[in-house]
């Protein structure tokens, strides 16, 4: 099922508003809505689900205008952040619930067979008669997914699906969800504030800030060509140096960087900590080391440029320099943007 959002608007008195979002999701695609809290990503997801109604704009499922179809009839599977499993029902009853209340009448045998099939799919076959309070967080997550899939939804929507789980459980579940998605081919939209999760799982990442889409594209596109300083910062650790842009060049402490197509004035240079080489002499921005932090596989160096701007970069564990040493920062892959 193809989904299209056409200039969807939702106003709130609080900060979660959505200001005119348009988005196309192809059938069978796995798309992440990525953004900081308050960026409106959950509100968008809830509008697609029909749990909230848009103030303006339209949402299409295929060619059908689904904007005003109530959630009951919209045919979406929604997985809640805290799973929202019914605590008084067993795992099996939770999964069967949607089929029991459905307008499509199914025989108890058919429901039982489908429950078994879904339990196998989410690899929880032995837990049918447990209550949600008796299983782990990761297992609850999978029950919630099975329950959402039981009604054969046209679209699967997940709100921070791994937000409440331990880091290692999270990674396993992520790979597993990708596998399930590839098997079922169901159009899936999920919300996350964790960039690693979005990049790891999604075909396409939609990055939101303050209720607007700032960039959308494959993980490769958003990582390699971040549209602006916000995306660059949000996707990972980034250093920022203030620069002055003159005639297509960005100048920092006497060093010039390419800045094609950026208007003259104040600007900024962003780069990843891994894209810095420390040189004892030669080219680069003059700096001195403030602190060296040891990590299992590397050393993180905190340095200060001559103009007093802080830079952090990663080096091999063998990095021999110490606090107070002077040298030069050789920056690879700098990204130049106009000042915010």
């Amino acid at each position: 099922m193809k989904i299209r959002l056409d200039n969807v608007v939702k106003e709130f008195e609080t900060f979660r508003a959505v200001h005119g979002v348009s988005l196309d999701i192809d059938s069978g695609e796995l798309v992440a809505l990525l953004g900081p809290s308050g960026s409106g990503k959950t509100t968008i997801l809830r509008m697609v689900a029909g749990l909230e109604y848009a103030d303006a704009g339209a949402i299409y499922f295929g060619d059908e205008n689904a904007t005003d179809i109530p959630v009951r009839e919209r045919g979406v599977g929604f997985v809640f952040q805290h799973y929202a499993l019914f605590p008084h029902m067993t795992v099996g009853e939770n999964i069967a619930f949607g089929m029991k209340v459905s307008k499509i009448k199914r025989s108890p045998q058919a429901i039982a067979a489908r429950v078994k099939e879904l339990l196998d799919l989410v690899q929880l076959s032995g837990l049918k008669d447990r209550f949600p309070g008796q299983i782990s967080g990761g297992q609850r997550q999978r029950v919630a997914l099975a329950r959402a899939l039981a009604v054969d939804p046209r679209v699967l929507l997940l709100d921070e699906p791994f937000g409440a789980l331990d880091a290692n459980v999270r990674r396993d579940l992520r790979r597993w969800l990708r596998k399930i998605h590839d098997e079922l081919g169901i159009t899936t939209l999920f919300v996350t504030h964790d960039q690693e999760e979005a990049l790891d799982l999604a075909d396409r990442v939609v990055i939101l800030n303050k209720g607007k889409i700032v960039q959308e594209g494959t993980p490769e596109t958003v990582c390699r060509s971040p549209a602006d300083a916000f995306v660059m910062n949000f996707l990972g650790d980034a250093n920022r140096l203030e620069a002055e842009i003159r005639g297509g060049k960005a100048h920092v402490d006497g060093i010039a960087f390419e800045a094609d197509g950026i208007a003259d004035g104040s600007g900024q240079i962003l780069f990843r900590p891994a894209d810095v080489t420390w040189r004892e002499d030669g080219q680069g921005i003059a700096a001195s080391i403030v602190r060296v932090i040891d990590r299992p596989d590397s050393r993180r160096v905190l340095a200060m440029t001559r103009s007093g701007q802080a830079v952090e970069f990663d080096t091999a564990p063998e990095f021999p320099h110490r606090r107070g040493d002077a040298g030069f920062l050789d920056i690879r892959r700098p990204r130049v943007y106009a000042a915010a």
Partner: protein
Amino acid sequence: MAHHGKGKPPRVGDHPLFRRALLTFVLVLVGLMIVAPLVVIGVEAFSKGVAYFGASIADPDTRHAIMLTVITALIAVPVNTAFGVAAAWAITKHDFPGKRLLTVIIEIPFSVSPIVAGVAYLFVFGLQGLFGHALQAMEIKILFALPGIVLASMFVTAPFVARELIPLMQAQGRDLEEAATSLGASGWRTFFSVTLPNIKWALLYGVVLCNSRVMGEFGAVSVVSGNIRGQTNTLPLHIELLYHDYNAAGSFAAASILAGLAIVTLVVKVALERQGAGRIQRPSALAGADTVTPEVKP
């Protein structure tokens, strides 16, 4: 684990002397204020023998008072239960202007003396009151009759169910209802198969409290009922009447019924809770962290 020295408490704030003193204080007060009066009721009720107890209960006026109290409870408790569920539902699952005000208003009967409620009803429904003449013209008798008694009882007990439900339903949030709806359940279906099972213990507790208060209500009812023996006397009013008649044993016999009812309702509550406790989890325990069995890797 190191041995702790003699005279040192095992934990901070757990000094044996303090613990004993605290426990003694609480036990003495419980004995004096709660247990002793109940024992006195039982002893006094049977002070003139079982036969006299039986005769006191069988007295037509006493029987009528019991009936009236039961009828009042049968009307007031269901109505207030429905009100409590509706109010808690509205307050916790919906946003509307004046929500806080409503929450405060619902609690008013707790802070207002019941006698004030009774007097207020006199002013509204009494002959000199707002609707007095209209009601008289239509020959509807509210005061000094069953409707007045029920209304006064309902006023006093209005907050009981809502008050038990609101914190619980607030903690539960709307997720479960949204999940049920997204799975295709109708509003009624969602209420009966998702909301109700998760609030039933709190609801039951509220109903039990509401019931014992309705049956025991004195102040408000005494103003609006008119104390007509054998007609508008509820059990608590009848007890007072008997007492003023210097019929102490009869009064205590009637009181023992009320006390007995209270004990029965409490026992019922405890029994029901215990029956379900093995199967039903307190939703609050589920809302929080994942503290159960370790993850089984897929």
